[in-house]
């Protein structure tokens, strides 16, 4: 009969009567018209400004354009993946430190987590770009972007992992201890694997933030997607079309990552429900 998964969005409206149906139809038509008008205005503005001109778009038909952008994307992905791995490793240790028995370790890790979560990525980027060289730290451009991005993410990762650990029922630990397992191996073999599964969606969402943060690579001239885009722009004098395309590419990648996170979350819930 009535599905158990009913949400408020579903029950908010009753089956419409004749009067309501008419109102909805009128509103639908009006809103369609309005949206079409909006789209028309945007396109008109493109046309007036001459941005629909062939010279701004023809090079997208060339393979070399795409292979150049592809190289940039590869740089972006490299930074994102390495940052993701570093952030996960650091986040793991921060989480362990935060839930440990030692008060000093707890305070220290809580402090670090709050610090990394409260400071903008760009400020960390400037630290590695401008401040670190003053301290005699010479880094390759790759690390000048990868390190700030991963530092910026590790605190969130730690908190995500901690929420996962908290979600594992207490009985799991007690059962494992009563089987004679040691505290450390209980955590690594019993608690953490379960916690990890719960937080995969949240970790994927964090990966989206990491990917977004990699765009600051242009600050330190690392050849990522954004940087290669600006090379393309100076070659073809096509600022609008290229930056628009780049934005679309980022949106699509992040959209897919978010969809993956949702899919994992749904699958996890179904599994949980089957128990």
């Amino acid at each position, binding site marked *: 009969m009535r599905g158990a998964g009913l949400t408020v969005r579903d029950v908010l409206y009753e089956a419409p*009567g004749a009067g309501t149906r008419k109102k909805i139809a009128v509103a639908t038509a009006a809103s369609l018209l309005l949206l079409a008008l909006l789209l028309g205005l945007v396109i008109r503005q493109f046309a007036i400004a001459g941005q629909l001109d062939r010279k701004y778009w023809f090079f997208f038909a060339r393979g070399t354009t795409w292979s150049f952008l592809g190289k940039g994307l590869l740089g972006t992905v490299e930074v994102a993946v390495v940052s993701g791995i570093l952030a996960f490793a650091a986040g793991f240790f921060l989480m362990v430190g935060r839930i440990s028995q030692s008060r000093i370790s707890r305070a220290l890790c809580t402090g670090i987590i709050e610090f990394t979560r409260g400071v903008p990525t760009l400020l960390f980027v400037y630290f590695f770009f401008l401040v670190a060289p003053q301290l005699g730290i010479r880094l390759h451009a790759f690390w000048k972007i990868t390190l700030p991005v991963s530092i910026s993410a590790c605190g969130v990762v730690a908190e995500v992992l901690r929420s996962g650990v908290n979600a594992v029922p207490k009985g799991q630990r007690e059962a494992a201890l009563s089987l004679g397992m040691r505290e450390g191996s209980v955590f690594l073999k019993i608690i953490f694997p379960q916690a990890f599964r719960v937080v995969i969606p949240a970790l994927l969402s964090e990966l989206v933030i990491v990917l977004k943060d990699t765009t600051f690579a242009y600050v330190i001239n690392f050849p990522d997607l954004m940087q290669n885009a600006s090379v393309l722009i100076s070659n073809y004098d096509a600022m609008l079309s290229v930056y628009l395309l780049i934005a679309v590419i980022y949106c699509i990648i992040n959209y897919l990552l978010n969809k993956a996170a949702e899919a994992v979350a749904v699958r996890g819930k179904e599994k949980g429900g089957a128990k």
Partner: protein
Amino acid sequence: MSMSQTPMIEMRNVEKHFGDHHVLKGISLTVKKGEVVVIIGPSGSGKSTLCRTINRLEPIDSGEICFDGKPLPEEGRALAALRSQIGMVFQSFNLFAHKTILENVMLAPMDVLHKPQKEAREAAMELLKRVGVDSQAGKVPAQLSGGQQQRVAIARSLAMNPKAMLFDEPTSALDPEMIGEVLDVMTELAKEGMTMVIVTHEMNFARRVADRVVFMDEGRILEDGTPEEFFAHPKTERARDFLNSIKDH
């Protein structure tokens, strides 16, 4: 006696589908003013749906439903106004989680009937006292037991001075020891002459309080009679099977 000529609720040839599932098949049912009608039947028989069509929480495909002599409005303010005259109590209480017990009872009289706050508060306290939860007035729903929440839900409906009350399995979500307190309130209401339609599995309650028992199966009304007739001499095989199956428990 001309008043009692118009029935409170009248359903004629009501049909209803959920997709491919034919839930109500040619339902005709009349409930007189002051009458207590208990609807019983196996789960999935359509009894809850029937109850929910009376205030149009479920729209119907065809047929006619009249309340106090007037056909149910289709939508809008007219429908809302009609609903304000019919109390409804749900299986899962459905109290407003962000409001206190007292506010739950005061909300609709103030918003829908535009009663002044002071008057609404006094009436609400009176009703809470009547259902025995006045000492909990300042708490929020989650702090109350299921039985207490359901009694508040009844008070909330009564605050609108309804002409009739619908009960959709009001005790099914309750722990056994709390069922009695809710049924007691309902029994009181019945004694005071409230028109009631009750979907329930509580057979003893039906025997004691109902003026009529309606038995439903697979979307049809199979029997409609006094509790004495129905429980002692069920006419249909289905009803006999049903009564036997619940006797075992």
